[in-house]
């Protein structure tokens, strides 16, 4: 008898949601935004496992016991090294982890590959530019994630914490613009905003994304 696979992590589900299953590529999202969302997904994962907690001002480690997930545990070890008497705001951790965003995403994508959900294809466009695609092998998982999130934003039930966080990640990256028609989006926007702010990491993520985008815009303007 084979051991059942662990459920998909928040980051893995977010990446599936961000994947245009028809094109096998991520929807168009700014790299800095994707990095912040990746960081947010990791912090949310640790928060769901009660290893970290936060109030309106700061985020702190509450339990250093490993979760068993190497990605989460490496971040937990890093956070546990921070001085306890100098707790940092959520945006501090989001920005710090966002610097590792690409490496963290790569790990999560490899796990999705290993589970046989996606495969990796490297192609050349015009024989010069490299383009990576992630065609789906099985669409069961992506369908399940999309249906669940649509249920959250189009229904009126109290969302589960995991789904509430996934909604915040999707909202911060503008994924609902791709998943919903403009009419559906207009109707669902109040509910999406309400769900996305229910956990404090969501609004902090939106703030970090705005700040980083502003910094990039300012830097570009001075060139």
């Amino acid at each position, binding site marked *: 008898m084979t051991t059942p696979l662990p459920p998909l992590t928040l980051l893995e589900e977010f990446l599936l949601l961000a994947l245009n299953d028809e094109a096998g590529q991520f929807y168009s999202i700014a790299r800095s935004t994707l990095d912040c969302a990746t960081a947010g997904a990791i912090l949310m994962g640790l*928060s769901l496992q*009660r290893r*970290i*907690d*936060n*109030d*309106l001002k700061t985020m702190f480690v*509450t*339990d250093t016991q490993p979760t068993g997930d190497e990605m989460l545990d490496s971040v937990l070890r890093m956070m546990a090294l921070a001085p306890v008497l100098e707790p940092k705001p959520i945006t501090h951790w989001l920005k710090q982890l966002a610097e590792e965003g690409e490496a963290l995403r790569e790990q999560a994508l490899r796990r999705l590959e290993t589970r046989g959900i996606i495969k990796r294809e490297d192609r050349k466009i015009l024989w010069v530019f490299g383009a990576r695609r992630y065609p789906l092998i099985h669409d069961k998982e992506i369908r399940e994630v999309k249906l669940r999130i649509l249920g959250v934003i189009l229904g009126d*039930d*109290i*969302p*589960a*914490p995991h789904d*509430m966080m996934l909604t915040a990640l999707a909202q911060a990256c503008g994924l609902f613009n791709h998943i919903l028609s403009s009419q559906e989006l207009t109707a669902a926007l109040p509910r999406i905003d*309400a769900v996305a*702010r*229910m*956990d*404090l*990491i969501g*609004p902090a993520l939106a703030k970090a994304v705005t700040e980083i985008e502003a910094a990039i815009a300012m830097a570009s303007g001075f060139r």
Partner: protein
Amino acid sequence: MRRKRGFNPLHRNDKEGQHIMQTVRIMQHPATGSEIVQLPVRFDAAATEEMENNILLALKIGTRSMILDASNTTYITAAGLRMFLVLAKDVKAAGGNFAVCNLQPQAKELFDACGMAMFIPAYSQPIDAVAQMAA
């Protein structure tokens, strides 16, 4: 209001015979049967972990209406608020009513910042919540 008699999952003993959940008290409103749960002073990740299974067990054995009394809770975190939602969702799924009351300034600020009022009714006193549930 009287202390609930008989089995109370929040006051059971664990395998080592140690009394658990000493900081959380459950009272039952005599007329409506609503469970009124007194939250601890600090309602954070550690407190919610201790509390969650016990309250969920209370729901399994038939509790249908639950009111969290936060009058002693001077500090609450995101994990504490998440616990409100988990309980509200479970109570609602069981066809019951859920409310919080006596939110202290720090808890109220967090509650409002997260827009919780959209999903969870908050009252000044347990008696207000009981009256609303009975209406």
